[in-house]
């Protein structure tokens, strides 16, 4: 009987001991950076975490690879809407790949990165278009918002499929994440404008009950966040302007 007590005690000790010995430290270094074109960060869609724990959920991503280990899988790095990103990593040598399907020219040449402690990098890309000089005005007589912008051609031979204005109630706004959005057209190089109504009465269909409710809330809050997106023909993701906040006051 005594033996049993000793046995179980020693087993417990063993279990405790194993808690320290063979576990890894969490990754201690941070890699931060921006996706830039001519020194300016690029706006993209807000990444979202999905219900199964957030592996892939759209937005635009970069990927990191580290060779020399048995488990060779990519480390996805989601780009925030203002073009920044960050990843917690172990010290080591990584390769950073710019993944296809983004609003910039496909270039899968990898970038070598040596992570030693925290560091920051700029990842250069060549977008198909850039969205310049976005400005928004609220017209209180007919409750519309007009966004004016210029889409500038960067890569020759590409055409604009559509431009969009998205109205959101938080600063996380893009064409997926918004209260209302509207597509318009834009010719590269010339100023274009898109007008969208935020009057709930303009969305009468039974299927738009959610939009009506959200717009009423928005008008009550008396401000909204806006963004212009430009979608290149045949590319899934749009490139976005920076987020701007405007007042929706009637007085």
């Amino acid at each position: 009987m005594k033996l049993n007590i000793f046995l179980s005690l020693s087993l417990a000790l063993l279990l405790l001991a194993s808690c320290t010995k063979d576990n890894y430290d969490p990754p201690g270094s941070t890699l931060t950076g921006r996706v830039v074109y001519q020194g300016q960060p690029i706006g993209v869609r807000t990444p979202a975490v999905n219900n199964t724990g957030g592996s892939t959920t759209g937005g635009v991503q970069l990927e990191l690879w580290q060779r020399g280990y048995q488990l060779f899988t990519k480390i996805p790095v989601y780009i925030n809407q203002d073009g920044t990103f960050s990843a917690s990593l172990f010290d080591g040598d990584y390769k950073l790949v710019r993944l296809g399907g983004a609003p910039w020219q496909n270039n899968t040449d990898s970038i070598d990165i040596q992570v030693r402690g925290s560091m920051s990098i700029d990842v250069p890309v060549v977008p198909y278009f850039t969205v310049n000089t976005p400005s928004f005005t609220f017209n209180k007589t007919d409750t519309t918002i007009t966004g004016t912008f210029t889409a500038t051609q960067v890569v020759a031979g590409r055409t604009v499929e559509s431009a969009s204005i998205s109205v959101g109630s938080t600063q996380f706004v893009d064409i997926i994440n918004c209260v209302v959005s509207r597509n318009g057209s834009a010719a590269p190089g010339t100023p274009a404008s898109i007008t969208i109504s935020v009057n709930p009465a303009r969305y009468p269909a039974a299927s738009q009950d959610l939009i009506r409710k959200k717009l009423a809330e928005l008008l009550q809050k008396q401000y909204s966040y806006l963004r212009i997106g430009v979608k290149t023909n045949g590319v899934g993701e749009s490139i976005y302007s920076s987020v701007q906040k405007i007042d929706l006051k009637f007085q």
Partner: protein
Amino acid sequence: MKTLYKFLIAGCLLTTIAGCKKNWLERTPQTIILEDQVWNDPKQILGLLANYYDRLPTDMGVDGNWRNMADYDDAMWSGYTGEDGRNNIISYAYSRWAYWDYTLIRDINLALESIEKYSVKLTDVQKKQFSGELRFIRAYVYFELVKRMGGVPLVTKQLIYDFSGDPSSLQQPRVKESDIYDFISSEMDAIREDLKNVDDKGTPSNSRANKFTALALKSRALLYAASIAKYNNLMASPISLPGGEVGIPASKATEYYTKSLEASKEIITSGAFALYKGNPANLGENFYEAVVRKSSNKEAIFVRDFLSAKNKRHAFSYDNIPLGIREDNLSSSCITPSLNLVESYEYLDGSNGALKTNLPDNSDFIYYNSPEDIFANKDARLYGTVILPGTSFKGRSVQIQAGVMKWNGTAYQTIEGSQLGATYSPPAFPDGDGKLLTGSSGPHRSIQEVTNSGFYLRKFVDAGAGTSTRGILSDTWWVWFRLGEIYLNAAEAAFELDQKVDAATWISALRERAGFAPNSVTSATITMDRIRNERRVELAFEDHRVWDLKRWRIADQVWNGQPNNPNATVYALYPYRIIRPGDAARDGKYVFVKLTAPRFRAPRFFQLGNYYSAIDQGIINNNPKIVRNPFH
């Protein structure tokens, strides 16, 4: 005594020696089945085949992954709230449709080689028959692989490792996407005459491959290939890889459409199958039976069968029966069809199927005498697919009513019950009239296992007594191929080849069965949109919608994730009873409200990277010759 011992010892020795016959160490084992025993016994080969048939994949079915029915725009999830993630798919994962079952391919290749090697007692006909069936299953698996992943390594022989330390001989690259479709086509041509499985009366088996099953696979696969060839190249920037692993040249479209049409035509003209018309008095029931009924149904071409007597059953009815008429005490109402699907069924006069809930100028509701009146004169397939408010199932009426609307002199006040089956009566409602408030089958905005969309699923749910209990379960079959689809395949291919008269004839035949007038579609009125809508309504919940949208390359527009896109959101229809004493034209009547399904959270979002599924990194690590799909 001594003598006795001598005899005994001698006797023992003798028996021992006797045991040392020649083959003592080479006897046939009693517990292990040997290769040449398996491959010379038709029953054992059939057992293996059954296993392989059982391993054919689906994206949705009646067992296994049937829950995926709730993930597109035809339905939503109304069951257990822990799975509400299905109503909140922010975007489809790139690996969502991934499939890489080379284990099954290897098993089939091994079986094919073993039949060649060991089968000596089988007749030539039997050998061809079994090899043909195995090759059919292999082609089917390759079709599933190519429609999800694009071109994959085409392995038709066992790959055997030589222990040299160098695995590169086993590492095969992906072939062109079109090569896989060509492989399926040529395999079907090669084996179709070998496949018998037709009984004495000339009735083909519908659970084992035969000539017509092979043709049906060819019809479907080549239609997919043709539409990828055509529509991929119509995109602003076609999805393709430099090696052709993904993307088919536009020049091949006509060839594929023609071959698909030939295969479809051969099935239609063979006379072996017929559209099910066993219940002409009730066309809605007739359509339900066409899919579900297992006896004297000449429409089914290839099914995954279940049989209660052999204890092969599934719980699809248990999980999807309407709450109010469920027979078990748990689980019901998981998959509930959307208003989007219901409205895609046209009116019998050919007009748009949008339900009329309000007067044209939006000034008032339209008042219906009973809940089912709003669905009057609709395509009969609607009734056969969906359990509508006011209809019945299993002989019991399914009570669907969201609440009451009470007139307070100037406007309606909407009252919904917190419980199912509640009456509008005191003490909760002091001026209540004692009549029904909320139906015993809902709909309800938040209670789980009751419809959230206002509809229930009828297709594939078993109408037999007790089949929705866990003790009995159901044995309705899952339809892989039926003649209805072949008509649609033929019509689509003919339309693309500009044979509009034929196309209209086949579409009209299906519509006529659903209650439309003869020749309701003519060569002048047929359009691609109409064919697409016919596919949606005829083949709802039969694992076609997502693949169809993919091959037409419109999935990223239909499900673009935007909150103001009505196609990407699941809508509901809530019926209310009117309380307005003194107004005989309105009091006691029913009105309907369309709304976004309350439990539905995120619009469906299908991205360009979803057209081909991501290949798992582990596969690429093992075989560096595998190239990734675009956007991944």
